[in-house]
Structure formats: structure tokens, C-alpha cells
């Protein structure tokens, strides 16, 4: 069946088997390898992308279910050669080691900052809870929390004309 969706603002349309999972559509059909997979039981969050701005596990979604929706992956964070503050924050705060869980963690962080009513005052608990759908084996999460905070602070400063 023909399945069409928009990924990072670009239209994609491919003839696929109905059973194809969204993570594979992204990786194989759209050829965007930044979204990874890590388990069979929807626990690890390595495959997290945004659908209409909201994090979902792309390994637990059929590509067909994304028809007509807007998918955002890690590749969509950088715009016109400028990194998103979340990406910069991960770099500043050493929030990645092997990098495998990083895309899922970054899009989740991006979503948290966007939806939170007061991002510069997020509590540690709120940040940790937001990323608790993802597993990281390398970093122990401390720096991931710091990176998300860094990005929120950066954006707030930029908004007020600072930085």
C-alpha cells in the first residue's frame, strides 16, 4: 500500500507492506539513519521520534498510522546549518558517550522544553520523568538532565536578547 507522510517538513510517499513499522519507514524508505532501534518490547525509547510534535515510539507504530502526520526526527533539529539548542546543550554538557540513545533523548528534551510552561524552572524530577521512557547505558542521565536545562536557559536568554 502507498503510505505518505511528512518527515522534517519533506514529503515522502512509498509503496510498502502494511506491516512495515514507522522506524523502518524512516530508516529504509526515507533513508534517515539517525533514528535507531534497541529492543523488541517498546521499553528502550531508542526509536523515539515526534509525531505532530509529540514523542512516540516509532518501533511500536505502523508506518501506515503516520499517514498524513508530521514526523520530526533528529535530522530535523538542525535548521539551515544552525544546531538546535538541544543539540548544542548535549554537546556542552557531555550528555552523550556512544551516541546511540542520543537522538531519542534529544527529541524528547526538545518536546519537554516546548511544552513546559516555565522551562527555566523545570525541576530535576520533571526532566527525569520526561526522559524515563528512554534507556541510556553510558551516561547515567546526570548530564542529559543538565543538557536539557542548558538548552532551556540558552533559549530563555536568547529570547530576552541576552547571550
Amino acid at each position, binding site marked *: *500500500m502507498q503510505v505518505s507522510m511528512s518527515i522534517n517538513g519533506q514529503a515522502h510517499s512509498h509503496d510498502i*507492506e*502494511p*506491516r512495515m*513499522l514507522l*522506524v*523502518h519507514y524512516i*530508516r*529504509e524508505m526515507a533513508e534517515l539513519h539517525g533514528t535507531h*532501534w534497541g*529492543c*523488541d*518490547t*517498546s*521499553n528502550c*525509547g531508542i526509536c*523515539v521520534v515526534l509525531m505532530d510534535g*509529540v*514523542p*512516540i*515510539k516509532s*518501533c*511500536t*507504530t*505502523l508506518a*501506515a*498510522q503516520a499517514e498524513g502526520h508530521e514526523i520530526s526526527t533528529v535530522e530535523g533539529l538542525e535548521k539551515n546549518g544552525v544546531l538546535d539548542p538541544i543539540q548544542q546543550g548535549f554537546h556542552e554538557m557531555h550528555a552523550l558517550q556512544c551516541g546511540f540513545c542520543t537522538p531519542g533523548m534529544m527529541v*524528547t528534551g526538545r518536546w519537554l522544553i516546548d511544552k513546559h510552561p516555565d522551562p527555566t524552572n523545570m525541576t530535576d524530577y520533571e526532566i527525569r*520523568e*520526561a526522559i*524515563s*521512557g*528512554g534507556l541510556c547505558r553510558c551516561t547515567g542521565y546526570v548530564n542529559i538532565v543538565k543538557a536539557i536545562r542548558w538548552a532551556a536557559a540558552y533559549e530563555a536568554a536568547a529570547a530576552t536578547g541576552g547571550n
Partner: protein
Amino acid sequence: MAMQTPAPVEYSRATSVDDAIQQMANLNGEARFLAGGHSLIPMMKLRLANPGHLIDINPLEPELSYIRQEGDEIRIGAMTRHVNMLESDLLAQHFPIFHEAEHVLADPVVRNRGTMGGSLCQADPAEDLSGVVTALKGQAVVRGPGGSERVLGMEEFHVGPYMTAVEPTELLIEVRFKVKRGHGSAHEKVERRAGDFAIVAASAALWIENGTITDCGLACSAVGPTTMHISRAEQALIGQAPSEDLFAQAGAMASQDCSPSADGRGPVDYKRHVAGVLSKRALSRAAANALR
């Protein structure tokens, strides 16, 4: 690739509730409805579930995703996502247990997709929302071919592990909760790790007027073949004044009346014990928020 993947399957989308039911009828009930998919798709990937056909009811979200008050009832549409129930002011105001239970149900990402209907119909004995709905004495509205509807209480709804009274050609469309005065509710859960299914969970609801318990709901998850409805404790509490001793007795009943199995989460004696502890704690906090 090599992450596990589903077997070949046919797929169609529903355009309305009645269209979904009609499609299912045309397939003689031999398809599965696909809502959030976070129970069904993992089972399909492990090839434990191999439906020949999926009817995607996500297009029904505008029609079936709602939390609203109608008269003396709160009604939740079957396609309402967990995140909506977690963040609903209406639910927080009327039934505080929703926020508590949703907070510990799966993880924040799964909650963006999973639905009320999916959770109830999956009927996993360890699942939190079934306990909540049972404690709140929710009524499930099920629609069948030709527009026929029936309303089921939770005891009728839950038939066995992963089995409900919903017929293959029917669709759960709504769950209804009566709003009565003096309500408080709470959910207690013990898990091996955040996001895991409960080792044991207890959902407690109380209605208290003039210092007396006028109604009570108590359900335990993960300690029986389905959600365990501790009706003996409910009966014992009605007409009594809330007290720690009373709740301890209710806890003892929960401990005795539940029917846990040993598994990787714990042995029988431990689960019985925790059913008692959590029931008491949930009732205690339910009383505290009823009396606030």
C-alpha cells in the same frame, strides 16, 4: 534491521465508529482494532498475536477522544489517550485517582499513544487503569453492529486474563463514572522499576458524607487472573467512619481475597502482603482527599 517485526497483515482505516464496526462485521470478527497499539503491536512483533487484518481506529480520535461532564456523569471516550487523562483538570477535580494512576502507568512516551479503550480491552491483569475504573465503579459502553449498545459494569467486563465481555464484532466506545458528593480516591503501586507493570497496585475510592463512608470502591491489580474487585472490603466499609484501623481491616481482606500467582515480580506471599499494605495506604489517602 532485525528488530522483531510483525507477520504479514492486511490494514484498513475506519472512518467512523459505525464504519469500524461494519468493517469488523464484514470480516466476521476476525480482525483486530488498532488503537494505541502499544499492547497489540509488540505482541505482533513477537509473533504471539497474528491477526490477519488490522482496522485502524486512530482516525476516530476526534469522535472518541473526550473527557466531559454530562449531568451527574463524567464520560471518557475510548480513544482518550493516557496523557489526556493524566493532564485533565476535570478528572483532577472529580477523580484524583486518574492523575495518580496515569502518572505511574507505563512511561510518558507510551502514554502519548495508549488509550482508555485499549487498556481496558487488553485486560492485562497487572494493568493499572482497569483497577481505577473498577474502584470508581465505571460503566463500559459497548456498541455492536446495527448501532446496538450495551452497558457493562467492570465485573461483567473483565472475564479472565486478556479476555473481556466485548464481542469480536463490538467496539468499546465510552466509560462513564457517576459523580457523587464527598469523593476521594488514590492509587498505590509497587513496581520493580519506573514504567514496569505493577507487582501489585491498589485503587481505592471513597465517598464520605457527615463523617460516614457512603460508598467505597477497592480494586487490586496484578494479584489475580483479572483485576481483583475486593467487594468484601467495600461492604465492610460502607456505613463506617473512616479510620486507620478500618482501612487496615480492609487491607487484610484484600490480602485474603486476592489470588496472586508467583512470577518474576514476586512470590504469592509477598504479593498478598503488599495487596494489603497498598489497599490500606490507598484507602487512607482517599479518605484524606475526600475530607479536604
